[in-house]
């Protein structure tokens, strides 16, 4: 099995947001979830280019939903994390945990 692809910080954040949203992950909800959990308001450009790149890498898949009048009759593009994406984010988090082990950081409580 090939090793999980390396992820950038923002890619990890986006993948985690999609995983949290489950079946309701599209542009607006992903941005809101990131803003709610991280106090960062990602620019639409950064988010969409990251989503496109992750889809090209096979980390997420997308499908188009129904068009709604609220969106000017435009369809939503829903995202889902693939097994490869899940493995990549798990691997990245394991690395973080390993690096954090034994460290006492101010502002971070340890279990």
């Amino acid at each position, binding site marked *: 099995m090939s090793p999980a692809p390396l992820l950038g910080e923002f890619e990890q954040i986006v993948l985690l947001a999609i995983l949290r949203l489950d079946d309701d992950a*599209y*542009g*607006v909800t992903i941005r809101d979830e990131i803003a709610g959990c991280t106090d960062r308001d990602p*620019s*639409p*450009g*950064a988010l*969409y*280019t990251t989503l*496109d*790149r992750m889809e090209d890498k096979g980390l997420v898949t997308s499908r*188009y939903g129904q*068009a*709604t009048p*609220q*969106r*000017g009759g*435009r*369809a*939503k*593009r829903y995202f889902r994390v693939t097994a490869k994406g899940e493995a990549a984010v798990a691997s990245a988090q394991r690395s973080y945990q390993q690096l954090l082990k034994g460290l006492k950081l101010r502002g971070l409580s340890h279990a």
Partner: protein
Amino acid sequence: MRSTRVAEWMLSQLTTSERAEAVIGDLLEKVPARGALWFWWSVVTTAAALVWRDVAANPLRTFGLGLTGFVVVLVLFVLLVFVATAALVLGLIVFSSISDAQRVVGVTHLVTGGWSWVVLTVVFWCVLAGVQFQVGRWLARRSPGHELAPCVAFTVVGLTCSLVLVLVFPQSTRDPIRDAASAVLLVVLDLPLYAGAVKVRKKRLVSG
């Protein structure tokens, strides 16, 4: 917002039409809370991010193409100026061989009417726009899937060259407003280049 079709068209030049449609839909959902200005700012920054993604996919090749296109346009521009000057000199030679009465009529017409200069200028810029359009098509054909990226590189090369000229030949009195207007004019003059690239992209998408 009726003008969202323009925004959608803009983004569809940089990504697939389905993706552009979904992005505009997402932005429209937020318009009631954030306003039209935010919508357009988001469209522009998203377009910039998509262009940058295309350029960053292969920066050396993209800037190589942009530089080649720029040199081609520059050479053709010089040739055009040369041909126009030659035509003018030839005209003057012919003009000097006619009688004084005819010359007076001709000069009066040229100075007071002024239309010949307007026509000459329009023809000159039309030819240049045609050249840029063809160069835009040529660049786009060499960058399938990222048609606009070499055109952006072309514009960046043009702006860099003008900046270098400003630095190499500094003027004692600089007018920042005039400099900014010149930069905007340089970008506007590149529009036929982008039109050529857009045409090639449209053709590629239609042919599948």
